[in-house]
């Protein structure tokens, strides 16, 4: 690996009470690449992402941004390092409009008062930059949008902040064919613009279509992290379901590394 990862995790442990969900997880993300994070239901993908986002404190392990060790204790901290996350359930407020959602918790103000004009302009520019042409008005309530449009707004919200790392938790899970294609195209474009993108997905076709790198979690352990071009469809499925595939993956049956 020549380039330094923009985000790197080492030895992450995370338990919820007596249940250990993440075991000694290492994870690296590179700028300009889409890293797919795959794994079966309950493998710990969302938990890992929430640890990255500062929602769950990690029990042990190291967190590096551009090679520098950092401590992330809240979503604000993560955002401060340029990490933005689009959660599985999107976390949009249905009762607010697109602009209001995009600036949620980070409103622009002039003096005491909200600076609606600037926010509107920045939101429009961001959506334009993503070549989003499907929303009629950026003052539309989010509740009136389709699933794909909601996803688009959530992604636009994440890239609005000059973020460096955008993490998408199953962005296409609820979408139809056309909308999935659009979101994937958007994901690819983000990476082509130099962002580091992490894509969580259960759909291997999507993963192979857009990713540069694949990381497979198996029962809370990182089974393998490889270039997409170095691995086959069948191998990745094996890694997801049993944690190993030939020489790849976790070497003994209970999931611990050899």
């Amino acid at each position, binding site marked *: 690996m020549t380039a330094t990862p923009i985000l790197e995790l080492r030895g992450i442990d995370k338990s919820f009470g007596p249940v250990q969900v993440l075991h000694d997880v290492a994870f690296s993300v590179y700028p300009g690449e889409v890293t797919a994070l795959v794994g079966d239901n309950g493998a710990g993908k969302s938990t890992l992402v929430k640890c990255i*986002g500062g*929602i769950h404190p990690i029990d042990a392990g190291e967190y590096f941004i551009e090679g520098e060790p950092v401590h992330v204790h*809240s*979503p*604000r901290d993560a*955002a401060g390092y340029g990490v933005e996350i689009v*959660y599985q*359930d*999107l*976390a*949009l*407020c*249905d*009762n*607010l409009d697109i602009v*209001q959602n995009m600036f*949620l*918790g*980070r*409103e622009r*103000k002039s003096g*005491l*008062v*909200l600076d609606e004009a600037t926010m*509107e302009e920045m*939101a*429009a520019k961001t*959506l*334009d930059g993503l*070549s989003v*042409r*499907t*929303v*009629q*008005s*950026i*003052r539309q309530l989010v509740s009136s949008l*389709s699933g*794909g*449009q909601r996803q*688009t707004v959530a992604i636009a919200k994440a890239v609005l902040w000059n973020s460096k790392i955008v993490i998408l938790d199953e962005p296409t899970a609820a979408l139809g064919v*056309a*909308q999935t*294609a*659009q979101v994937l195209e958007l994901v690819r474009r983000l990476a082509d613009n130099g962002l580091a993108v992490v894509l969580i997905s259960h759909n291997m076709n999507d993963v192979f279509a857009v990713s540069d790198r694949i990381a497979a979690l198996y029962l809370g352990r990182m089974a393998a992290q490889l270039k997409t071009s170095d691995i086959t469809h069948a191998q990745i499925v094996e890694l997801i379901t049993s944690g190993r595939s030939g020489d790849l993956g976790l070497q003994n049956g209970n999931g611990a590394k050899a």
Partner: protein
Amino acid sequence: MTTTESPAAPSRPDPVLRPHPLRRTLDVIGVQNLSLIIALIALCAVIGSQNTNFFLVSNIKTIGTTVSIVGIIAVVQTVVMLLGGLDISVGSAAGLTSVASAMVFTSASSAALGILVGLLVGIGVGLLNGMVIVYGRVNAVIATLATYAALRGLANLISNGRAQGYTGTDSTFIFLAQGSVLGIPILIWVLIVVALLVHLMLRYTDIGRNIYATGGNPTAARLAGINLNRYVIGCYILAGFVAAIAGILLTARTGSGQPTSGSQGLELQSITAAALGGVALQGGKGGITGTVIAVLMLGVLQNGLTILNVNSFWQDIAQGALLVVAVVIQQRRGKLRAYGLPR
């Protein structure tokens, strides 16, 4: 998002659609508020046609001053409801501050001190509610139902259940109760100022925006880094503070501290007004304008029933019925899902 972008499509339309001016004024007032205004006018017409005394300036002032105490409470109830909460203790808090301010006034013979203590009591009550809800993780209805009962008990305990003190000769209290500026009674000014300040906060500041966000989707609000605990506690403190103002005005109006009379029922009236005004019980929807119009409507209705000599017990029934009707209209118009139906 029906079709993928066609290459022939021109550059995207102006993101901010500029609607017709008429449409925009309607948007500013809101369809819901417009229907409330129409209902208010109709109500006035019906009552006025039965008894023309209704339209006397003195009667309209009476409506205004009666409405002001319920009005300021309804305004803060709106804020709490927008946040997704409910404050049932507002009436009891007003009763407690009414007694407390009158008693302090009597023993210290200082109106300023009486008012100050009253306001501090209100802030304390709000802080207590907020802390129990946030740190005790108690449902807002239960928490404020508990303070509703406890504060009423406390007010009766310290006053022996009787009116306390006599403020009717103090110039400050007389000014609050009977004074007027520019021909408008102080009581009405208090409502105007409270409503306007809260309206501006909700509409034009990030605080207001975050209150709406929290009511709409608390998870999203927390993920966005909004400090929910601070907002919840802050809103209940605001409610307690304004309930204290109501309690002090109550003391001024009646000339003495009243543990229950005048404050009992303020919780129901304020919730009814907010619901009628379009504030969603599940939070995040509604505004001050609707609530204020609804407060006026309730005031006119009550005044009308009195003028038309309707038995006052009917007024309670009307009040309860109105709350149900208001919520039913709201749920149906809000295209809310039937109970348990997925989105």
